[in-house]
């Protein structure tokens, strides 16, 4: 099958998820084309001519609106945020009539997306060939445990509650340290630097750093990766691929023992429990069983196939 993915060229979780999916589809023998909606020439392609299906990951080039090729739209964002930003939900609703169906990755969101267009759920997978345990292991971040926050920071998407949770964690685990990565600088950096100094959080905050290009290495240096996202969990599950624990208020998969709410005490308790039981759960196996991009790609291609005949 020949698949065109329409994606904006921006550094984001959406971009990582889309590229990993496309890469896996290619590994499974499908033709892929990566297309930026505003540019006519493809960014890359492995086939010629019309695709069998268009996958929309944010926008679609107007030239393809009525080309007769089936279109499926991926729901990467979460519904409330999509309304809240004033743009995404409107764009989704505008594009819905041109799409055969939607695809989402979290069952909690399904009712919302399915109200707009028929929606399929697929496993949220990560590339386990890329996110893996490194051998030899890189030097560990300091702290026992070394807790890592590495989400993209913007607006309310920041580690404030995690800092407060770590204050509680440190009362039980005095050696615990928090490492804040991916801080965009500017006002956000300034705000957290002031908070750290004023609240004396420097006793447990080990780093406040910018973007780390080698994410796999960074994840391998941590013990526990924590996200403050709710109700979604975005890319934090990459930690599982690297054999590390992941805790996030938005991550409540059935059978996973370290869940929490978006609340300081709950987050702190999950971190403490996770560290006390560290070694009992094989996080890499959890990723293989629950978040394998190979499964995601197979499920997607099966869905595309329903519309290409």
């Amino acid at each position, binding site marked *: 099958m020949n698949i065109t993915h329409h994606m904006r*060229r921006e*550094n984001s979780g959406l*971009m*990582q998820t889309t*590229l990993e999916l496309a890469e896996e589809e290619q590994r499974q023998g499908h033709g892929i084309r990566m297309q930026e909606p505003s540019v006519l020439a493809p*960014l*890359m392609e492995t086939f*010629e001519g019309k695709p069998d299906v268009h996958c929309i990951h944010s926008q679609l080039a107007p030239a393809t609106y009525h080309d007769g090729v089936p279109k499926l739209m991926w729901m990467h964002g979460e519904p409330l945020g999509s309304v809240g930003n004033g743009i995404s939900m409107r764009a989704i609703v505008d594009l819905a009539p041109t799409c055969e169906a939607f695809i989402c990755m979290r069952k909690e969101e399904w009712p919302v997306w399915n109200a707009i267009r028929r929606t399929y759920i697929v496993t949220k997978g990560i590339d386990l060939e890329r996110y893996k345990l490194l051998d030899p292991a890189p030097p560990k971040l300091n702290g026992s445990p070394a807790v890592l926050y590495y989400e993209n920071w913007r607006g309310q998407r920041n580690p404030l509650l995690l800092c407060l949770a770590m204050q509680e964690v440190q009362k039980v685990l005095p050696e615990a340290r928090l490492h804040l990565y991916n801080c965009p600088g500017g006002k956000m950096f300034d705000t957290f630097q002031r908070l750290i100094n004023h609240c004396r959080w420097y006793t447990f905050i080990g780093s406040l750093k910018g973007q780390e290009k080698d994410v796999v290495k960074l994840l391998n240096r941590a013990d526990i990766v924590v996200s403050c996202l709710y109700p979604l969990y975005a890319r934090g599950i990459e930690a599982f691929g690297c054999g590390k624990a992941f805790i996030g208020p938005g991550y409540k998969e059935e059978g996973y023992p370290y869940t929490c709410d978006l609340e300081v005490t709950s987050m702190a308790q999950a971190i403490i429990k996770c560290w006390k039981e560290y070694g009992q759960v094989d996080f890499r196996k959890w990723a293989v069983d629950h978040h394998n991009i190979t499964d995601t790609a197979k499920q997607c291609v099966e869905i595309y196939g329903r519309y290409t005949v």
Partner: protein
Amino acid sequence: MAATQFKTVSELRDSIVSAGHMDREWLAKMLHKVPELPVVKDRSKYLVEKSKGKVVLDIGCTGPISKAIRLAAKAYYGVDQVAADGVVAVDIDHRPDQMPVYGDVEIVVLSEVLEHLANPGYFLMALKQLYAGKDVYITVPNAGAYAVREDCEVVNKDHVSWYSYTTLKTLLTRYGFEIKEARWYGAGQPYRSEGLIMVVT
């Protein structure tokens, strides 16, 4: 299959990630919408049309376009590296202050000149001073048209810079010019057009 910008998904990912963290400050500083401007198919015809019946100062005036402008203009003054009939020799890159001042000039034509200059700022400063208030028709090759064929980059060997819509606008406004009109010229999609025309005063 047509050559694409990236050969593999991995290459595309590396390119996006290495572009940096695209926060709002970065976006505001680094990303500038390429405007949808009217397109002039033939730069020569456009400049000749604008020169018809006008008193023209043509800076950098060798070549067929200048000949056509001279024929169309009511009166014509030329400035170039070498003096000729109706053309004064001035080293506009190093001594732009030596450009003659003709009081009756109505429009100034500066076609495919800026990209040859090592000191465009000094030149523009002098031009603004000597011909304040006059319409200046500036054309340059468009940076968006930059191309590499096989292992060769396609560029005139005498050029020392490329101008995009954004960089040309920044340069001109920095030296006090007000942009009255802008157009693409030549073939290609707008943002890849051969060149750019700006009318400033």
